[in-house]
């Protein structure tokens, strides 16, 4: 199958033209036969790239189990587990902990929420009340209580999440994960 045109020139006798055609034909059939498993195999292999997470109903906001008043103004961040239905390939698990957020009441009216996932490589950050910062034990990233990174290890600040105060005191949050390692916040899923 290699370099058929060379054969063409270097075959002193015989039927070079037909030989050439046979090469082409053999290669063509071979490709065709090979393409079926190759293409379907590739498509199967790449399936995770094509799968899109189905959007849940509603606006994506979840009601948090803490109310505005329950949080102290300018107090310590409080860790809240996010409970949602989780889809894993062929299973749906109802009401699973899918992540966690830190909620903090920055002033009377505003709640600031951070995804507890470290933007560096995705470990869980831990709020240290004694040092008044978030600390990640994996590669020692630290973030201020405002989520701003305090050393060069993380690529960006902690990921702030959208929060809404509804019905005079209920805290609603849009939970999202973001891709690790990038300087920009790129939502995943």
């Amino acid at each position, binding site marked *: 199958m290699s370099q058929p045109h060379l054969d063409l020139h270097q075959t002193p006798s015989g039927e070079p033209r037909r030989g050439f055609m046979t090469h082409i034909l053999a290669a063509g059939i071979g490709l065709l036969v090979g393409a079926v498993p190759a293409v379907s195999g590739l498509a199967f292999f790449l399936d995770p790239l094509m799968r899109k997470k189905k959007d849940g109903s509603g606006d994506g906001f979840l009601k948090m189990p803490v109310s505005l008043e329950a949080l102290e103004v300018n107090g310590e961040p409080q860790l809240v587990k996010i409970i949602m239905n989780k889809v894993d390939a*062929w299973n749906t698990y109802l009401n699973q902990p899918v992540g966690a957020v830190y909620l903090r009441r920055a002033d009377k009216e505003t709640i600031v929420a951070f995804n507890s996932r470290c933007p560096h490589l995705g470990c869980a950050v831990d709020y240290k009340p004694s040092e008044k910062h978030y600390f990640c034990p994996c590669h020692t990233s630290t973030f201020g209580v405002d989520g701003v990174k305090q050393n060069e290890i993380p690529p960006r600040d902690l990921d702030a999440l959208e929060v809404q105060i509804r019905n005079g005191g209920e805290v609603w949050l849009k939970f999202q994960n973001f891709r690790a390692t990038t300087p920009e916040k790129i939502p995943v899923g």
Partner: protein
Amino acid sequence: MQSFLNWLDARTDYRQLLAPIRMRVLPAGPRWAYSTASCLLWLFIVQLVTGLLLMLSYSPSTTTAWASVHFIEQTAAGHFLRGVHHFTSHALIILCGVHVVRVLLARAFQAPRELLWITGLLMFPLMLVWAISGNPLSGGLSGVSQIEVEGHIIGSTPWVGPLIQRILIGGEEAGHLTLTHLYFLHVGLLPLLVIGLLLFHIGQVIRHGLSVAELGGPQDDVSRWSAPNLTHLIAAHTSPLPPPRLKYYPYQTVRNMTVVTVVLGIISAIAGMHGAPLDAPADPTLPHTPRPEWYFRSLFELRRYFVGDWEFVATIIIPGAVLGFFVLFPMLNRKCSPRVSLIHRALVLLVGVGAWIGLTGMSYLRDWNDAEYLASSAETEALSARARDLADRSLLPPEGAITLLRDDPKTQGPLLFARHCASCHSHADASGQGMVASEPSAPNLHGFGTAAWISGKLDPQRIVSEHYFGKTKFTEGDMVSKIKELFDGIEEAEAAKMRDDLKLVAQALSAEAALPRAAAADHDAQAPIVTGRELLSGRLACTDCHKFRDQGELGSAPDLTAYGSREWLLGMIGNPQHERFYSGDRNDRMPAFAEDTEHPERNLLSPRELNLLVDWLRGDWYEPPTTSIPAQRRNATLAGN
């Protein structure tokens, strides 16, 4: 026999195929050092065989992986087999390194052996990937968090990184597909790749090993099976006689087999004694600080020096450059005289091995000096031991091993307490072991409901300490003044009598809690308990404020009926302002954790969490019998089914 072999040979040419081994001559004589290659081959075969056997009982999915591995651990020889598979993977990596060093020392990469060298080098990273693709298969905490972090590292590669990450993890989050994909890599793709490379590698050994001398021609030493190595050179200089020309088989073979036997012996001993580790089932809600395997520690350490935008230097550039350098090394080294080449190689080796050891050592030192990391890894170990204990207790539910620790009060209690209670309450014993609130402002709940704990609360000094009401508004309250009153202006003898009476009251109240750990003591102390009850509603007049059974009224102080029992605590934590507890403004800052019985999802604690917390506070959890013999229990279980 002979005629059969002739018959076979006529059809298969097997003698010719075996000739490279049977006819090979070692001009420099057999050497122990030559055994690395053969040892690698045998360990590789051990991996294929043990791996294949483990597949008999392994099932890759998040619900079944850990359970099936735990099952393997319980089967006859499964523990040993998995141990051998685990420790052989480490041995293979070590030996791979030793083999590369030996080949480098022997300058055995020279023309025409470049492809031999390159395929060997390529197998090394493949081997590492092969090993780490196996770690998460057990569905354990550390393996799964390792692959998640590794996934993110891969994902940080520009362009293709995120795509490879997605394919590797099988989506955005680790799940079933992560395991099936890793399984595909570990038992399918990587073995095929490595076997392919290995066959080529061995083919090259045979091809280039067959030197003229080995076929009985004139002696030609340069491109032999092994080029003259250091020891050979030294031997040649120091011994007056040339070494005897011995055949590879059996003189080298017997050395190889000795080394293989020793190595496998060591592996089997370790495997038999320790077995492969099995962490707690992976659960993102469990605290865990992931660390890479020892063979990636150097890269892990390197990442500390290239942070932020420079991380790719540690992740891609340096490893890539090192591999590239070694691949090209034969070319760089080609023109050198033996002496210069020796210096080059010695230098490469020194710098390479030195840097590797230095970085690895530094990384471990850092962790060993990091109290927080040590605590975290001890916690992981404790969780793992706990999960194994729970799994040994009974067969696992179909939802998988993750439920073991999620439904375990001993595991979840401290986590829930730390998150919801520990900003005010401590939970620490007399020596300060446990959780100590940074600014305790409510009672220490360690031992809540025990006679000892209640006794403290009935002591005029201790009730006002920060262990009880010291930091609450109740220091000024009726309870404290009542207890003080009991001791007001009485003689020491009377005070001693009073203390004894209060001890009986404490015993009676503790019996109300019906703590499972105190069941035997409560049972043996029926008489004092009855006396205590009588004192409580009689002479000491607690029921002036508290309700106790059919005496007293609700509304002015917490109900002492079933005080500290499961249902009492569920109510108290759920809603302390209920009239049974501290109604109205008598409550001191204690939040209601499960007030809304209609909509449990709106509460701070779900019913499940509340139950776990209460069970933990009451010390109500399963403990394995101290003299457990897993094998016996296993046999009992199997017989029972």
